[in-house]
């Protein structure tokens, strides 16, 4: 026998999924939200999303080259981050701002901590908060949905969270006929994407359900309109796509529940009593930081340790 054989440790089979495949599924799940943003805010949304995705992938590529590591620019994780940054921008924004946001997300939040799998907060969420604080006026210049049809510049308005009086009914919120960031207004599109991810077993429904459920119950208890709160602002986008980020959410089942409830609690508290309407961003980042502790608390019990041997 002349041919050399591969010798590797068992198992010698793999189920066939890859990181790239998972990231591709997330991108597919976000297509409805992208389509909705184009319908609601015009083709300018594609420009913003494109710029932020391009900037994210490019920064990942350059970073890995400079650090002389294996290049992860093609595993689509940077593309997902870029897309999420783009979907968190208002339509009227200067495209340089999302581009800058993607650079922050990839370079500062992700690569400086060791790249994929090592960042302790969600890069897109952290970038949104940094942009929100750095460019408060541009980041909050909301435009009405379909504003692009009426005038060239669109009409600027407040997000329904800051000024609920402008809202006509909940159905408008569900289909996205309100002001807000590109990807967050159309709840229906986000839910479709979430169902796709659950059906493909990319995410489990635990975090979105506990998160949204907590917000629903809390706002109802505090005398608010719960339907308004679960569809307004970035909650759907945050709960389905940002809080479920593998890297920054707990792996354990009970950890996921604690994490979801925590996100919900902080979101409601910040929304109702805080001075900024940024409930979702801050609460997810806060819970991201707590993840190692949550995981430690909710370590699974090993096989055979459940009951004492009788």
């Amino acid at each position, binding site marked *: 026998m002349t041919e050399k054989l591969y010798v590797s*440790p068992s198992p010698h089979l793999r189920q066939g999924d890859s990181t790239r495949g998972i990231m591709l599924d997330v991108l597919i799940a976000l297509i409805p939200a992208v389509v909705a943003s184009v319908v609601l805010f015009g083709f300018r949304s594609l420009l913003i999303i494109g710029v932020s995705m391009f900037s994210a992938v490019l920064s990942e590529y350059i970073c890995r080259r400079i650090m002389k590591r294996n290049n992860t620019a093609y595993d689509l994780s940077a593309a997902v981050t870029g897309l999420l940054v783009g979907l968190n921008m208002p339509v009227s924004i200067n495209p340089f701002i999302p581009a800058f946001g993607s650079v922050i997300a990839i370079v500062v939040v992700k690569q400086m901590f060791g790249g994929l799998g090592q960042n302790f907060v969600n890069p897109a969420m952290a970038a949104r908060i940094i942009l929100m604080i750095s460019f408060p006026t541009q980041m909050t210049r909301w435009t009405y949905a379909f504003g692009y049809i009426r005038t060239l510049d669109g009409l600027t308005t407040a997000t329904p969270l800051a000024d609920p009086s402008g809202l006509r009914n909940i159905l408008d919120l569900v289909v996205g006929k309100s002001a807000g960031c590109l990807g967050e207004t159309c709840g229906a599109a986000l839910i479709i994407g979430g169902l796709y991810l659950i059906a493909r077993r990319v995410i489990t429904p635990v975090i979105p359900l506990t998160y949204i459920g907590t917000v629903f119950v809390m706002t109802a208890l505090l005398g608010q309109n719960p339907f308004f709160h679960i569809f307004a602002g970035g909650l759907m986008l945050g709960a389905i796509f940002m809080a479920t980020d593998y890297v920054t959410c707990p792996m354990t089942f009970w950890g996921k529940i604690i994490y979801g409830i925590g996100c919900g609690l902080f979101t409601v508290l910040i929304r109702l009593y805080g001075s900024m309407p940024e409930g979702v961003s801050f609460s997810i980042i806060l819970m991201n930081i707590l993840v190692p502790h949550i995981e430690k608390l909710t370590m699974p019990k090993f096989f055979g340790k459940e009951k004492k041997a009788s």
Partner: protein
Amino acid sequence: MSAKGLSFPKKPFKTFGGVTVPHKKATAVMDSVIMPPPKQVVIPMQQHIGAPCEPYVSPGDYVRVGQMIGDSDAYVSAPIHASVSGTVSKITNIILPNGVKSTAVVIDSDGEMAEDPTVLPPIITGLSDLLRASRESGLVGLGGAGFPAHVKLDIPEDKNVDTLIINVAECEPYITSDHREALENSWAVLSGVYAIKQLLKIKRVLIAVESNKPDVIEVLDKIAYNRVRDPKNEVRVLPLKTRYPQGAEKILIQACTGRQVPAGKLPVDVGCLVMNVTSVAFLATYMKTGMPLITKRITVDGSAIKRPANVIVPIGTPIKDVIEFCGGYLQTPKKILMGGPMMGLALYDDTMPVMKHTNAVIAFGENEARLPDETECIRCGRCMRACPMHLMPPAICQAVESKDINGMKKLGILDCMECGCCSYSCPAHRFIVQKIRTGKDMIRHSESK
């Protein structure tokens, strides 16, 4: 244990984790074929867990089939017998698939297959006879572990075993040797079961078969209902869910009885005895004929094999002779496994001999042999959901990377049975099992210091 009672479950108990693996059991419908004796056999002196045997023969000796050629004084050990008749040409050293060095007796076959006159059916009247007979037969756990059978059957006096589980789960892809054993030798299976049940005074026997073997369930179910030998109907077939690793001892016990074997304990601690179907059938045949363990049915399959089949081969036959018997290679083999693809060992060449606990030889071509490259862990948690032992593989890997021995132990690294579900389900294709083995090695080193 008595609190649980001794009911016969209609459905298996729930088990945690596991993965769905492709079956690839094309050889399940084929009758086993008997391989003629090869020109030369290489019989390693270590084919079991425990002390290696000392060769009792020297070069130039003439040996007959069934003659004992190696034994050890140690309790945890099993004697080794000649599988062909012929002349011992040399005694050499080989490296076994698991990396252990062992002496091996090389016998040049004369093709006669002359039986040794000492091969006589044992006289069994009590438990001590059974233990002696199973030691003399050279029987080890044929499911793959190779634990000497007489040690397993020798139940400590303070332990009470009420349940015998016959393992016909065979959850590994490709392998069908137990499946064929249960079909072709079903009467031997049952008579082995009755003998052990009677001598060990066991009240409940569960023959656990994965649901992907309906023919085995049907056949065994039919003959397990035997009014003469089993008037109280205490031997029954239990169909299991088809899910890897259903055949792992601890998981099997949980699926059959709902009991969990605590960490570091043995099945007898929860009143269970698990035996592989082929082991039981062999024991029954041995009681009838007295011929020790010298042949083994192995599944030869994989994309590089021309005619996949179940082959009954003399122990010590080099794998390349078995593959030649199966029509040779279809394409250049790139990986040859001894055992299944989930837990089998990759060989570095094809001259390795078939051993007692070998149940399959699988040869892969380039496509299956190459594993995808490792990427970064994305903490998706699939390994955790797949782990049947409820461990947290990423946390264990981290502890191994930082050489934190206490941390590893606290995370239950020693409970890991290396079933491979974590690596199998990992989308980043990480070698989790390998890392865990490294960690176990570190612990062993630190303890031996």
